[in-house]
């Protein structure tokens, strides 16, 4: 009876052995290994980043490990992944932090193991990092604040300087969305006729954006434009706006230039979005890793071009 249960258990771990056998051939090589840890791999943005990084790694003869937690909000699981990759003794760690402050202890651990850390897309909180004695070799990413300014300037022009604006914020405390918001507010600040009448977080999620937008439309019937800190929320918002029969009256601007958003702009359901270039971020990140491995200097800030899509 017990013997049988042992056999069953062997089954479970034969699975692990099989998986490891599959991977052994790829990890056993003497190629230098670079790790790219992104926020999650169920978002097209990071899948594009992975593609750009992989293409660069292949051409440079670098072995690239790409890992991510299941959920974008899971800071702790991302920390575990980073800790595990430090144990894996990767040569360089390319990191898109889920929490700009929370990831700091893991960065310090990588520093202690002499693994250079490169922040991609999202910054690591400079004050928290300095306080903990950590360093980042480089930051590669869009200037999100500039993107927010672009979105704001576009709306100021489109509405000829006067309008009631609603804003869908991202996950509170997340650096990228906060930067977009800062830039957007700066641009509106230059146009006294532009007034933000509602600003609420919808956590970068489509269904939350739908509900929040419905509520904002109820409370402020005069809204003439909406800015969402990402396209996913903008797409939720245009549905809510269409359901309220106000599609013609409200200009919606998103951020990220996802395929769905580009399609909505082509169909004139949405006004504009800000295009980032995750593929380029991935490419530059791997090239930076390559330079670091060869002991070459890298720039501490490497901006990746952004553009307005309308």
């Amino acid at each position, binding site marked *: 009876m017990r013997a049988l*249960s042992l056999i069953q258990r062997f089954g479970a771990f034969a699975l*692990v052995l099989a998986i490891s056998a599959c991977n052994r051939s790829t990890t056993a090589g003497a190629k230098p290994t670079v790790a790219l840890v992104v926020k999650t791999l169920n978002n097209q943005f990071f899948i594009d980043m992975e593609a750009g990084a992989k293409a660069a790694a292949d051409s440079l003869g670098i072995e690239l490990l790409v890992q991510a937690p299941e959920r974008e909000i899971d800071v702790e699981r991302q920390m575990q992944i980073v800790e595990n990759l430090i144990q894996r003794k990767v040569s360089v760690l390319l990191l898109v932090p889920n929490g700009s402050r929370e990831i700091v202890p893991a960065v310090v651990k990588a520093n202690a193991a002499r693994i250079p850390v490169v922040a991609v897309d999202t910054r690591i909180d400079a004050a928290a990092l300095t306080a903990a004695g950590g360093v980042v070799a480089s930051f590669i990413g869009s200037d999100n604040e500039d993107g927010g300014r672009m979105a704001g300037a576009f709306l100021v022009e489109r509405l000829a300087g006067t309008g009631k604006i609603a804003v869908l914020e991202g996950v509170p405390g997340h650096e990228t969305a906060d930067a977009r918001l800062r830039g957007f507010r700066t641009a509106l600040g230059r146009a006294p006729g532009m007034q933000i009448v509602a600003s609420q977080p919808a956590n970068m999620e489509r269904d939350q954006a739908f509900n929040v937008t419905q509520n904002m439309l109820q409370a402020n019937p005069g809204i003439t434009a909406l800015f969402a800190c990402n396209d996913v929320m903008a797409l939720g918002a245009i549905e809510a706006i269409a359901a309220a029969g106000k599609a013609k009256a409200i200009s919606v601007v998103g951020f990220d230039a996802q395929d769905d958003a580009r399609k909505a702009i082509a169909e004139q359901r949405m006004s504009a979005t800000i295009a980032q270039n995750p593929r380029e971020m991935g490419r530059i990140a791997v090239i930076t890793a390559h330079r670091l491995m060869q002991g070459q200097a890298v720039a501490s800030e490497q901006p990746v071009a952004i553009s307005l899509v309308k």
Partner: protein
Amino acid sequence: MIARTTLRRMARGREAGTLLGLVLLCVALWIATPFFATTENLANVAEQSAIVGVIAIGMTCVILTGGIDLSVGSLVALSGIVIGVSLQRGIPLVISVTLGLLAGVAAGTLNGIMITLGKLPPFIATLGMMSVARGAALMLSDGRPISDFPAGLRMIATGVIAGIPAPVLLMLALYAFTWFMLTRTVPGRYFYAIGGNEEATALSGIDVRFWKTAVYAISGLSAGLCSVLLVARLNSAQPVAGIGYELDAIAAVVIGGTSLLGGTGSVIGTLIGALIMSVLRNGLNLLGVSSYLQQVAIGAVIIIAVLIDMALRRRVQRSPR
């Protein structure tokens, strides 16, 4: 009586089986990658298992009584936010942490009252609490994470005593205590009895309502303790922390051989279950397995563990009483 001894022996046999599973997994990884069997990595894995390990202690007690607690992930967030908000208001560290733990205990007690006095199924009561506690955490924190905790709290995550990381020591101490409570004290035996046959336990004069409420309070407390570890580890309390932890905790309990129907299982099995999950995740990271395949592998291990559990139970039922 004979049936009971058989059951106990089965539970013990199952623990041995789970332990063997862990050993086999470690051997497989030791062969597959040179990075696994280093002292540093093993300490790393043990430390990583502490978060789910601690929360799974309370879950084991709940599941032993035949219940379930889906609210623990949200309670982790609520406790953490209570600690953070208290510290922001200038309340001393020890009192803030106590308040955080009390928040967990209070929510857990409320779960227990809804289940015993309100006669709600545990699944429903704790599902409701899952949402209530998450909302409360978001309200208290205004949706924003709270950062920068005192060094004293950070020590819980970063401290090393006699070469062992502090979170691991804390986890092991809690497991030792719970093992003693479950196997050597009257309340512990009540939990098994309630899970085995609630009616018979009530008829024998035991205050089932009280002890069932207590078990959810214990679960709330273990969520609070988990939250202290998490806050110390991230130097941040987050209203969105702990999402999905209830499922990780249930998985650790189930892999550890505790029956979801209650009455059989052990907290030592849960510890091994939590370690299996951490070792598996660590190993898959070390091997550079794709994140998608990792989810498949972890799910497969949970399913196989439950299959074994069910196969064993059928044999127990068939064996003569």
